[in-house]
Structure formats: structure tokens, C-alpha cells
């Protein structure tokens, strides 16, 4: 069994000889017997369970797994250097594209070490990312088959299609990725009426009547004064934060915030401080220091302080401790920016996101941001809040001035799905179905003995894999059994915390989820992934 475990861990590293195995066996048994203590505290229990009880779970990494994971990286790095050496001296053919011939004397575009990770680690498991699909991204998808060369560097399309793969990866929380039904019909009608393009920005000739309608409906739905929509979710964050804070202001940002928020913070020119993910104590100490000591060097007081958090964190599956944040906000007179990309539509009894989940009125949050990509099955983003905020952004937001407005069929999709969510029984059914599916799947996964991160109610369910080579194996094995999953490793996660992330959809049936759990159980045995000690 031990050998089996080792093989499963290092199985995908080619060229590993049996000699290493005995060494690792020794290491592993050593750590097994002596140091099997958790690396960090098991449960994160939030200070004050608010109107809703928190079930946030971050089981610690077993020490021997951490060690094995680092050894795993070590081996890949050693082999990477070896193969780089061989490639440099022409013993191994390199498949990488090269610089143009007449530009060989330019300064190299990439530092050679920068791409080491891509070349020697990412490329080995390249086949599990960027899988092209050729169907609606609903509960089952058709994947275009690719055949990779042994080295993983090149692939060709076989011309075959893998039909009806169960989709556990798309952000289709409420199942609005549909090619028929009311949403698709309405979108098609709007193409007939408006066409596809707008060719102008909101400030110029791109403010169509349906954009105005969407904003009104969205503001009503969220129960806020006003709302402003944008054509891309990523740009909603990165282009609007600079309109709210500037030099002399302070941003206190959660350590696991999305890249778009981080970019927005950087572009704003404000000071950025980071607090530990969802840790209210750390946030409070940062806020306290900020207000008491003011700006560094000049010691002037900060103009304003903006706390930036997300509703549901897409890699951890955790839900923000909003009651805690709002309490601190009041105490220290800060402003709160809440990114509901993954929570709008997916949390709360009527799908109104994390504020409804906690029973908090959305007006208590200064800036409500969200995207239409996920629950609404469309594209774009919004910012909602007080009328003063929205009007300010309407005239100063870079996105509103310079970027083209949202395409009419996309806009229509949101209006229709929003109508279904907010005022029909079908919408209620979907929201309930999603909540049931999430709980059923997460509990099932925990029962199997996998380490599952995050909140019990979150639609994002990450299960830990740890070793990078297992990422590839897990995803390939799942695909073989007819399930499409998303695996994520460094740099999207900490280096030793690679994981598989399941996104649950209301469109998935209980049977599909049960089959998925069976398959996961099977593969987890094969890859020795049932790390949890709680079981």
C-alpha cells in the first residue's frame, strides 16, 4: 500500500526510478511516526457568529503531505534544470517558438528563469487546462479532444468530440447557460432589434434604452438607490477603484482578493495594506494603526480608508465575514467595497447575495460590485449603491467614458435571467436547487475523507490535492470517467496547496452529483487523496 501511495504521488513525473522510492519511503515513515502534527489550527471560527452561523472549514495540511509536495517540486525542478541543460546543448529538441531572425540582437523579451516554471512544470500538465468546448457550457458539455505529445509541449486535434461530459467547472450557478428557453429567445429578439455591436461608449452614442432598463431592474433587485453596468467584470473593478480612492487614501484589501481588485488598487495610486484572509483581528489592528498613525512619513491623517473584500472567494470557497467587517467599518469610519462576483444570485434565500445571506441590508455596504458572468449566464459587471456614488461613477468612471457599452443581446440575457430570478417560481426553484446541490455535494465530499475548504453554503467547493503532479492525474482520470473538473495550482494558489475546484450548478441533477462523488471516491483512492483526519 505504501508503494502504491508513493507511485500515486510521483506517478506522473517521468523518469523517476525505483531508487528514489525507497528514500522517500524512509522520509515518509519518519514523518509519519514523529511529526504528524497539524501545521496550523484546524478550524477558523469567527469571533461572533452573527445572525447566521458560520461553518468555515480549513483543515490543516498534514505535515507529511506538505513534505512530500515539496519533494515533488524538488524533483521536477532538478529534472527541469537537467532538461534545460540538454535543450541548451542540443541534446533534446526544443519545441518552443523563437525570436525572429532579424531580432536576435535585441534584449531578450523574457528572462529565461521566468519561464522555467512554464517550461518544466506547467507544460507537463498543460493538457488539463484550456480544454476547448463546442457546446453550451451547461450541466453537460462537449469537449474537443486534443492529443498531446509525450513531452506535453505540443498537441493536435484528433477531430473527435468527447460528448456529454458532466460539467463541474463552469460558473453556471443558476443554470442560465442555456441555448433555448426564455433567455435565449429574448437575446435573439434583441439581436434582431438592435444588432450585435454598439460601436460607442456610454457617454457618447452607446447608452441604449435597454442599458437604462437593466440598471433600473438591477437597482430594484438589489434594493439600492442606483446601479451602473459595464461591459466586462474584470474592468469594473480595475477601472472604477481609481475613481473612488487616490493618493492620500488607504486601501485595506483582503489577502486573497482577485487579480482585478489588486490591479484596480495599484492603478488608484492609494496606499495598499493587506490583511489576512477573513481575519477580523488582523483587519482591526490594521485599521487602528492606520487611523492612529496616519500616513507614513508625513503623519497626515488618511483622507479615506476603503476596505475591499469579496463575497465568496473563488479559490477558497469561503464567505466573507460581513457582519464583522461592517462592525469594524462603523467603528473606524471606513468605507466597504464588496465584490459579489461569485455570490450574487448564488447566496441568500432569494439570490440577492451575501448581504441577504447574513440578513444585512445592502445599503449598509457602500459599494456593491458584482458580475453578470456567473449566475446570470451573460457577461459584464455592475456597481450599485447610493445615487451619489453611481452618478459620480457615471461621469468619472474610465469604463463609462472610454470603453464600448455592453452588447444588446448580452444585456437582454441579464434582463431576462434577472426577471426569472427575482419574480418567478422557476427562479426560486433554481436558487433552492443550487443550495441543496451545494450542501449535498460538499457533505458527500467530506464523508469521502477529502480535505474540503470553505463555507458549507458556498457554491465553490475546493478539495485539496497538494502535489502538483496529482493535479494532472486527477483531471485526466475524471475526464476518462466523463467529468470535466477544474484543477488549480501555483500561481493561482500557494505553491503547496494545489486543489481541484468544483463549481456547483442548479442545473446538475442529484444523480449526476452522486455519480461524480463516486468517481471522485474512486480516483481519490487511486491517488491517495483522502487526507482528512476528521472523516
Amino acid at each position, binding site marked *: 500500500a505504501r508503494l502504491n501511495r508513493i507511485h500515486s504521488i510521483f506517478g506522473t513525473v517521468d523518469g523517476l526510478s525505483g531508487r528514489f522510492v525507497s528514500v522517500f519511503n524512509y522520509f515518509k515513515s519518519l514523518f509519519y511516526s514523529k511529526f504528524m502534527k497539524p501545521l496550523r489550527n484546524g478550524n477558523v471560527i469567527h469571533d461572533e457568529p452573527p445572525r447566521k452561523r458560520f461553518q468555515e472549514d480549513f483543515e490543516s495540511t498534514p505535515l507529511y503531505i506538505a513534505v512530500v509536495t515539496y519533494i515533488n517540486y524538488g524533483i521536477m525542478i532538478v529534472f527541469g534544470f537537467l532538461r534545460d541543460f540538454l535543450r541548451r546543448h542540443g541534446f533534446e529538441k526544443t519545441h518552443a517558438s523563437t525570436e525572429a531572425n532579424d531580432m536576435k540582437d535585441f534584449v531578450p523579451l523574457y528572462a529565461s528563469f521566468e519561464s522555467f516554471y512554464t517550461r518544466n512544470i506547467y507544460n507537463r500538465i498543460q493538457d488539463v487546462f484550456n480544454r476547448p468546448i463546442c457546446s453550451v*457550457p451547461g450541466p453537460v458539455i462537449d469537449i474537443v479532444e486534443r492529443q498531446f505529445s509525450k513531452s506535453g509541449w505540443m498537441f493536435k486535434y484528433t477531430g473527435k468530440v468527447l460528448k456529454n461530459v458532466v460539467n463541474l467547472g463552469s460558473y453556471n450557478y443558476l443554470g442560465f447557460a442555456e441555448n433555448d428557453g426564455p433567455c435565449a429567445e429574448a437575446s435573439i429578439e434583441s439581436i434582431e432589434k438592435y444588432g450585435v455591436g*454598439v460601436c460607442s461608449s456610454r457617454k457618447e*452614442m*452607446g447608452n441604449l434604452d435597454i442599458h437604462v432598463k437593466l440598471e433600473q431592474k438591477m437597482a430594484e433587485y438589489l434594493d439600492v438607490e442606483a446601479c451602473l453596468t459595464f461591459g466586462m467584470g474584470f474592468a469594473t473593478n480595475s477601472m472604477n477603484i481609481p475613481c473612488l480612492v487616490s493618493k492620500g487614501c488607504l486601501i485595506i484589501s483582503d489577502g486573497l482578493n482577485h487579480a482585478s481588485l489588486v490591479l484596480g488598487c495599484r*492603478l488608484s495610486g492609494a496606499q495598499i495594506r493587506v490583511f489576512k484572509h477573513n481575519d477580523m483581528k488582523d483587519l482591526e489592528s490594521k485599521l487602528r494603526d492606520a487611523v492612529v498613525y496616519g500616513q507614513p512619513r508625513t503623519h497626515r491623517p488618511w483622507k*479615506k480608508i476603503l476596505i475591499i473584500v469579496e463575497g465568496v472567494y473563488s479559490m477558497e470557497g469561503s464567505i466573507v465575514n460581513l457582519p464583522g467587517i461592517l462592525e469594524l467599518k462603523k467603528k473606524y469610519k471606513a468605507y466597504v467595497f464588496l465584490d459579489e462576483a461569485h455570490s450574487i444570485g448564488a447566496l441568500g434565500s432569494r439570490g440577492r447575495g451575501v448581504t441577504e445571506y447574513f440578513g444585512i441590508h445592502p445599503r449598509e455596504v457602500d459599494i456593491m460590485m458584482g458580475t453578470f458572468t456567473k449566475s446570470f449566464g451573460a457577461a459584464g459587471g455592475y456597481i450599485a449603491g447610493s445615487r451619489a456614488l453611481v*452618478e459620480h*461613477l457615471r461621469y468619472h468612471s474610465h469604463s463609462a467614458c*472610454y470603453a464600448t457599452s455592453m452588447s444588446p443581446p*448580452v444585456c437582454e440575457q441579464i434582463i431576462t435571467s434577472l426577471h426569472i430570478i427575482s419574480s418567478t417560481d422557476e427562479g426560486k426553484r433554481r436558487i433552492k436547487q443550487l443550495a441543496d446541490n451545494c450542501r449535498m455535494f460538499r457533505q458527500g465530499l467530506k464523508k469521502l475523507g477529502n480535505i474540503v475548504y470553505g463555507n458549507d453554503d458556498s457554491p465553490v467547493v475546493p478539495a485539496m490535492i497538494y502535489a502538483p503532479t496529482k493535479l494532472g492525474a486527477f483531471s485526466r482520470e475524471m475526464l476518462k470517467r466523463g467529468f470535466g473538473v477544474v484543477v488549480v495550482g501555483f500561481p493561482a494558489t500557494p505553491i503547496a496547496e494545489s486543489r481541484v475546484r468544483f463549481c456547483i450548478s442548479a442545473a446538475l441533477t442529484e444523480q449526476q452529483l452522486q455519480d461524480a462523488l463516486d468517481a471522485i471516491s474512486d480516483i481519490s483512492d487511486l491517488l491517495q487523496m483522502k487526507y482528512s483526519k476528521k472523516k
Partner: protein
Amino acid sequence: FQAPLYHYIVEGLLVVWIIRLLFFKSYKIHDKVPLTTKEKDELIEDWEPEPLVPPLEETRAVSKPYRVVSGQPGKEIVVDGYKCKNFASLNFLGFVENERISKAATECVSKYGVGSCGPRGFYGSFDVHLELEKRIAKFTGTECAIIYSYGFATIASAIPSYSKRGDILYVDEACCFAIQKGVQASRSNVVYFKHNDMEDLESKLRHQEMLDKKDVKKSSVTRKFMVVEGIYMNTGEICDLPRLVDLKYKYKVRLFVEESLSFGVLGQHGRGVTEHYNIPVEKVDMMCGSMEYSLASTGGFCCGREYVIDHQRLTGLGYVFSASLPPLLACAAIEAIDIMEEE
């Protein structure tokens, strides 16, 4: 060496004193008495932040409300109820009201739905995205292309994925807002040259060349890029591409051209500013464009050599971390390129 005893004693004491000065902690005046909790609480009580945004009346005073367009924003447009001829949209080829494009988009919705529900890495890559990338590469005559889901995010993501801290960007001072944001996000050293003034650009390049000769080690790792627009959004002028290409090879500076406005407009086939000047497209390192103007869809693209472009698939922020382009918009863009080629 005759000296009185007291002299040795004094000298000895001095030596001891120096040693003491050297090894003992320096004397520190504690001017900072740590604040007590009560004082901190008072400070927190005292602090009054600025309002998040100016009051509503103030915003209203300086701005006009948006005009509302009802119906299709084509060559005829209804603005605030007035029927007008449209001289304001960037609908250069009139594709907004094109029937073929609408039909392609409609068929696409019946096959794929509207949203893509995922980033390119995670089941958000559709076969139509791959086809569109191939079509753009073929149309522009480049090796490979990459598409973004928003025109604005294209160049703003592309610049920082190559140019890092310490690198140098030569940027036209009249460049559009998206370039400015990309430049800012890259945190590189930025040198602005006078609008479309090649003499000014060359003098700045020559100056840098002189600096480089002094510090060869540093200059051998400092990447340099020129960022220009095909047609400038702010001035409507066309860039002097032949001179820029000369300068590129003379001073070994890579050249990025942002062609949002010139794509579909300049050149016999609408391939942009390279075709306009009859310059082989390989001479430009990266060509960025928007699909929101001539193609009347949404999104943007970058094309060039595979060696250059593929890098963005792992480092272009707007590519990696954003949901992919809705398939119907990709279909519309493919159809638009088809029409450009055929008609």
C-alpha cells in the same frame, strides 16, 4: 618615549573611553512615549474621513445626463427622441446594421447560449474562440492571435505582460487612455515623446543609447518598447510607421502598435497601418486591435509572432482572470471578417 605618568593615565583613559563609545549602545532620547489605548480611541473618535464621493448636487452641477438612444445605433439613430444621422459612432464599416452578422450571432445563441461562464483556462474556451483567433491571424498575416473579452482591457493587459519594472516604454504623449493605463500598470519607466514627432523620439532613443554604453550590464537586461497608435484616438493622425520601423532596428527597441481605429479602416484590405504603408506585418512586434469598432462586436485582439503572443496566455491579466468573450460575439466577429474579405 619619555613622558610623565599622568600622561599615560590620561591617554589610557581616553582609549578606554573610545572603546566604550564604540561598543556601547548609543544614547537615545525617547521622544516617543507610546500612545495609550485611551489616546488611541480618542484619535479614532476625532478622525473624520472625506466623503467617499462628492455630494450628488456637486456631481450633477458639473455633468450632463447621458443621452438615451432608442433602437439600433446604426447610420440612422434616435437620440433622446430625435431622429438623427449618426456622425458619432465608430461604426466605420456599417456592420452594426449588417444582416449577415446578426444571423451568425443568432445561430450562435441557439447553439452556445449567451454567456461563456468561465475564463479561457477553465472550460471557457469555445471552438469559436479558437477559430476567431485563427481567422484574425490569417487576415492580418501574422503567426498567431489572442482575443480578449473587452477592447479596453486588451492593450492595457498586453503592455504589462511584457514590460516590467525597470524596463523602458517610449510612448506618444497623445496616446489613448487604455495605453496610459497599461503603461501605469506595468510600473516601467515611461518616456513620453512629442506627438508623432520622430525627431524627438530619436533624440530620446539616442540619449538612452549613450546611457546604455555607460552601464552595459544593466542595459543588457533592460527591455525597451515603443507604443504607438495606428490612428490616434485623440488627434486623428496616422503614425509614421516607416520611420518607427527604422528606429526599431536602429536602436533595438520593440514596437507595439495599437490599431483599434486603423484596423478595418486603413490599407487596401483594411489590415491596418502596416498595409497602409506597405510594410510587412512581421516588422511590428505586436499589433493590438479592438473588435468593437470596425467589426461591430465586442472584445479585442493582439497578434504577432507566436514567440511574442503566446506569452500572454499565462500573463495577460485581462485574459487569464476574466471570463472569456461570449461566443455569440466571437461568431459576429468571424462573420465580420468574412464580409471584409469577400466584399
